[in-house]
């Protein structure tokens, strides 16, 4: 993982003179950070991005996000100008809602990723800066499964690499707020099979929510969905604000202790800067619970990401890895109809983070 200047340095070094064949997957939205990753890649190597797969997710006619059509168009123009003459742009529509109002975004996002993608490009970069969790989780999971399928095929080692880019700026995150949430949660496509089966109904269920601020309503809905036997909340520690974990506990005191009856010893701590730390902590928890509950038929683990995009990627990687290793793992998620900008975004100077999640560096 690289962040800030080290991130742009990495890409300069990685792309310089290598003639890399890069596919960039971008979400088309109003977030001002949408094109920051593309700009960084273009500055590192002018024509490295051979194709840009633009995910045009549609949050529905009543979404508050529709107010920001002008910002979406600005972002799209910026993207066109950065890509102009250097690579092709392929647009894919991803409806978030079916005609009868059900959430179908996660399945449709996964379908948007064709099976041949890792044969056509040697580097796939998913910039999740302007994608909602319900879109980037299934996209990353689908890509990881394609990498695994190729490796399992045995005919050739995967030659492609998978990177995740995130443009992080807390002040912008604070301004872009979810408006409204669905009244029920669901398991993310690709992460439900083991959890929903009646034949596993008596297997104990552990819930690992990665906590972030202002998500009490989501936590309640997720808890109603999961109905866990045990809860292990993940708190960000260490963090820039040393009291952040305490503040989160104080914020959710009534919910965690009075309603959900969480054991204080169950809290898991992971660095707020490092998604791989979240990955390790969650994965270890999955392993330990399964060891401890082996006599009861092991356990089912449900992960819910309610924190930053970076930490959410860590949670996804842990769930994916655990599922690959035949643990019963699911991701429970509650969607939002859309987002609204609170006030005005005065400046956009995000810090870029890059995670190399599959490929050459792991093959050795």
């Amino acid at each position, binding site marked *: 993982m690289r962040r800030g200047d080290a991130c742009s340095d990495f890409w300069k070094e990685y792309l310089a003179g290598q003639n890399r064949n890069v596919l960039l997957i971008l979400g088309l939205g109003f977030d001002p950070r949408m094109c920051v990753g593309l700009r960084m890649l273009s500055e590192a190597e002018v024509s490295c991005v051979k194709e840009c797969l633009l995910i045009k997710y549609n949050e529905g006619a009543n979404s508050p996000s529709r107010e920001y059509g002008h910002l979406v168009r600005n972002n799209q123009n910026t993207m066109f100008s950065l890509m102009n003459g250097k690579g092709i742009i392929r647009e894919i529509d991803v409806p978030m809602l079916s005609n009868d109002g059900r959430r179908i975004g996660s399945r449709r996002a996964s379908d948007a990723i064709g099976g041949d993608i890792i044969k056509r490009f040697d580097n796939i970069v998913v910039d999740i800066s302007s994608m909602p969790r319900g879109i980037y989780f299934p996209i990353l999971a689908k890509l990881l499964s394609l990498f695994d399928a190729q490796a399992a095929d045995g005919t050739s080692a995967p030659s492609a690499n998978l990177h995740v880019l995130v443009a992080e700026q807390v002040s912008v995150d604070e301004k872009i707020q979810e408006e409204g949430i669905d009244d029920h949660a669901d398991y993310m496509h690709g992460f439900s099979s083991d959890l*929903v089966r009646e034949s596993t109904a008596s297997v104990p269920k552990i819930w690992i929510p990665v906590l972030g601020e202002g998500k009490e309503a989501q936590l309640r809905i997720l808890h109603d969905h999961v109905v866990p036997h045990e809860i292990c909340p993940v708190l960000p520690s260490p963090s820039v604000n040393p009291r952040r974990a305490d503040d989160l506990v104080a914020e959710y005191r009534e919910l965690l202790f009075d309603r959900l009856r969480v054991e204080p010893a169950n809290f898991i701590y992971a660095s707020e800067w490092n998604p791989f730390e979240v990955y390790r902590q969650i994965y270890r928890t999955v392993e330990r619970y399964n060891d401890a509950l082996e006599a009861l038929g092991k356990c089912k683990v449900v992960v819910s990401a309610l924190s930053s995009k970076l930490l959410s990627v860590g949670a996804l990687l842990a769930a994916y890895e655990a599922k690959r290793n035949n643990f019963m793992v699911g991701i429970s998620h509650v969607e939002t109809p859309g987002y609204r900008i609170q006030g005005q975004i005065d400046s956009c100077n995000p810090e870029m983070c890059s995670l190399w999640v599959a490929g050459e560096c792991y093959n050795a």
Partner: protein
Amino acid sequence: MREPRNPFRLRASEHIESDETFVRLFSPEVLDMLSTPNIWERPQIIRSAPGGGKTSLLRLFTPSSLRTIYALRTREYTKDLFKSLSALGAMDDSGPCVLGAFLSCGHSFATLEDLDLDDGRKRRLFLSLLNARITLSTLRGVLDLRQKDFSELAAVSLAKGSSTTKLPDGILDATGPSLYEWAQDLERTVCEALDSFLPLSESSLPGHDSLVALSMLSADGLLFEGSSVAQRVLVMLDDIHRLTPKQREWLLDAIFSLRSSVGIWVAERLEALTVDELLSQGVSQGRDYGGVVPIEDYWRGRVSKFEKMISSVADRRTRDTREVEIGRFADCLQDTLDGDEWQSVYQRGISIVTDRVKQRATGHSEFTAWISEREKGSGTPRERLLAWRTLEILVERELRKTPDFFELDTADLEQKDASDVRVAAELFIAREFGLPYYYGLSRLACMASSNIEQFLWMSGDIFEECVSAALLKRATQLAPPDQERILRKSIKAVWKELPQRVRYGTQVMRLLESIGKLAKWETEKPNAPYAPGVSGVAILMSDRDKLKNALQRPSNDGLALLAEVIASCIAHNLLEVKLDYKCKGQYWMVMYLNRMLCVHFNLPLQYGGWREKRLLDLLDWLAKGFVPPSGRSGFVP
């Protein structure tokens, strides 16, 4: 998990892990709503808004709950429950008579709709997944009822020669392990196909044409160690509203066309109904092929029964707290305003209101007898203030009439001094002199609007303060102002969350706010013309039909959106509806605000007062909100 500090916080039954805790908290009065003929023979549809208590009701009939009740049948807190269940035929002196298989339809069924298959194939896949899950749940229920673990599955079998002999393809023989293996494989195949990132292989997917599991698993066919498991088998399907509309139709058709001997109860939220059904009698009557148990409607028609039931629910939770000892929940709620601390307020009030009445009556000799009667002044200061404020309303009413120059005597006063005017007067006094109005168990029960969960969260916040007081060694009984403060805070939080919580949330909020503001404006008129106050609006039934038609033929007049918004309010119990209400020679659809919203808008809790509105008015409210007509004078002080 830790024991709960505040048992009121344990709302949904799914979150109460221990069966003993669950049955201890369950109030037997709830079972009265099942006291209809043929509940075991005819399919039953249990329907309510979120938090109505559907899942708790179903959970009570699962083997582990019934066994627990039977085991504890002599205990104080389960004695009545045992008696009620015995009266229903769910158990007798030898133990549970029902094998209840519980299944939530919340998971994965709706996802089937997203597969690239034709409707016929989707229906077969849907029914096969249901068959698998009903079979798994029933087999688990058998073991649970007999208190056996999974290793004894081999003792389960299907009777030879019964109606169950025709087994679906893939089942090796009529034994428990074969049935389980078949159902498990079937379910796994469907779930893995649904969850896979790879393209769907259609040929590998199973399919059934009917709910064959209901034929297989009848009471006379299901055996454990060669003998019948229970007198009745009951399949309980929860969360039907999470199915797609098409799947719900397939399910209900499959159930009703099968005419199985297995009892079937399905539970769903009102939101499962179409907007058309929500705006129709369908809410209360349902389709003619089965019984419908509309939970909120049931309680609305039985107010005192509801109060008794929630009082019992509250007492059970109060006794269950580990931290403090409080006998009854009612003991936490001081329900009078006769304490010394209020006497000076009443004296001041009497002086102010008396002066005002006399001033208003100046030059109107017809009120002399009424004023003299009040000046005799019997009763407590509170009663006297109430009497004077009632008189003020009555004087105001008389002054607005065409003068008839007859003197009004005390008999007139007695006749006009009705309870509804006194309720309005109490509300006016509370507002003018800063007295609490929303307090006491009886009013708390009203505020619940026939919804148990609504009652629990409001009571939970009150009980929290009582527990804290007990821990600090202070009196646990909350004074009325504290009760009102807590309730207002809780309700405000719910109100603020509304746009996020319900479909068309922003529009729902705007409509409710408009109704609330109109009701307040009407209620506060000095002559209290709709005493005790207005708390709803009504549209003509013919306008209701226009709303329904708008859904069939959407146009740009906004009626379709209005229909959707009203339906969303009904589905979430935010508006309580009365259809075909006859008034002024016309039929009306009356929509009352949920009673907690009456607190938010400072309205009385009683039903009764409503104002007729045109669809254009409501459309206007959706766009701009309610604007009070200008030029009115003489508001309540």
